[in-house]
């Protein structure tokens, strides 16, 4: 294994993670809800969901975070690696996969593991595994 020390950002990643954990903690302590982004978006797409305003306001906060950031500092680098075909295929897979799997990196990976849910641990292992395999195939087998 060949670690890219040059791009390794342990402190900002730890601090950013802690902030994510703080946000998830606030949402569950105050609102009694899991900060799972795919679940929040998915439920707003379905008719007759409860708590629409709270869910929408959480997502609004998430949406305007870069605007708040940009008013104090330069936004961090956002580098895309795909053309539109890759983005569409990836987006559809992420959309349908997170709904069938009842969660994503936030709901399973952060909140689920934090409440020691076996379902979330299995889900996280599954999407990490297929993520690693997919990048390996695309970058090293197909040489993309």
């Amino acid at each position, binding site marked *: 294994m060949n670690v890219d020390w040059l791009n390794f950002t342990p402190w900002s*990643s730890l601090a950013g993670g802690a*902030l994510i954990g*703080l946000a998830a903690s606030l949402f569950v302590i105050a609102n009694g809800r899991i900060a799972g982004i795919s679940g929040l978006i998915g439920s707003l797409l379905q008719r007759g969901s409860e708590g629409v305003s709270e869910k929408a306001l959480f997502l609004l906060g*998430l949406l305007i975070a870069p605007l708040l950031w940009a008013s104090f500092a330069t936004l961090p680098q956002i580098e895309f690696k795909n053309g539109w075909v890759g983005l569409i295929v*990836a*987006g559809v*897979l992420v959309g349908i996969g997170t709904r069938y799997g009842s969660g*994503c990196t936030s709901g*399973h990976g952060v909140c689920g593991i934090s409440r020691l849910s076996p379902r979330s641990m299995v889900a996280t292992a599954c999407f990490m595994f297929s993520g690693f395999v997919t990048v390996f195939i695309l970058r090293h087998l197909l040489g993309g």
Partner: protein
Amino acid sequence: MTKLTAFIAGLLFGLGLLLAGMANPGKVLAFLDLAGAWDPSLALVMVGAIAVAIGPLTWARRQSSSLLGRPMQLPIKRELDPRLIGGSLLFGVGWGIAGICPGPAVAILLTGRWQAIVFMLSMLAGMVLFTALESRRSH
């Protein structure tokens, strides 16, 4: 009050994603590229998030309502079914292609990049497709 806490939680979540590097698809893909020049940073995002959230979420499991009096709505499902596993595997493939998961997809939407908009619309289409397939199944 719960509206305000929801908004602040979302805002903090987004700032955390930006600070952590999770909102940069190139960095996410570098984390998923074990055989290449591997950037382990994002493992620390999970470590930091879980270290902070494990206490509050453990507390939440024992409560029936939140501090602001809202019902505690934690998932109750226990079984490891094919939907959980198949769905999560599928999600990982999409994540591995573009390096974007749902949280960052929202957090980068207003940064003015066309890629963020294309990804978001496709993700929403995938979710709508799920809802359509589910409602057909239940009829």
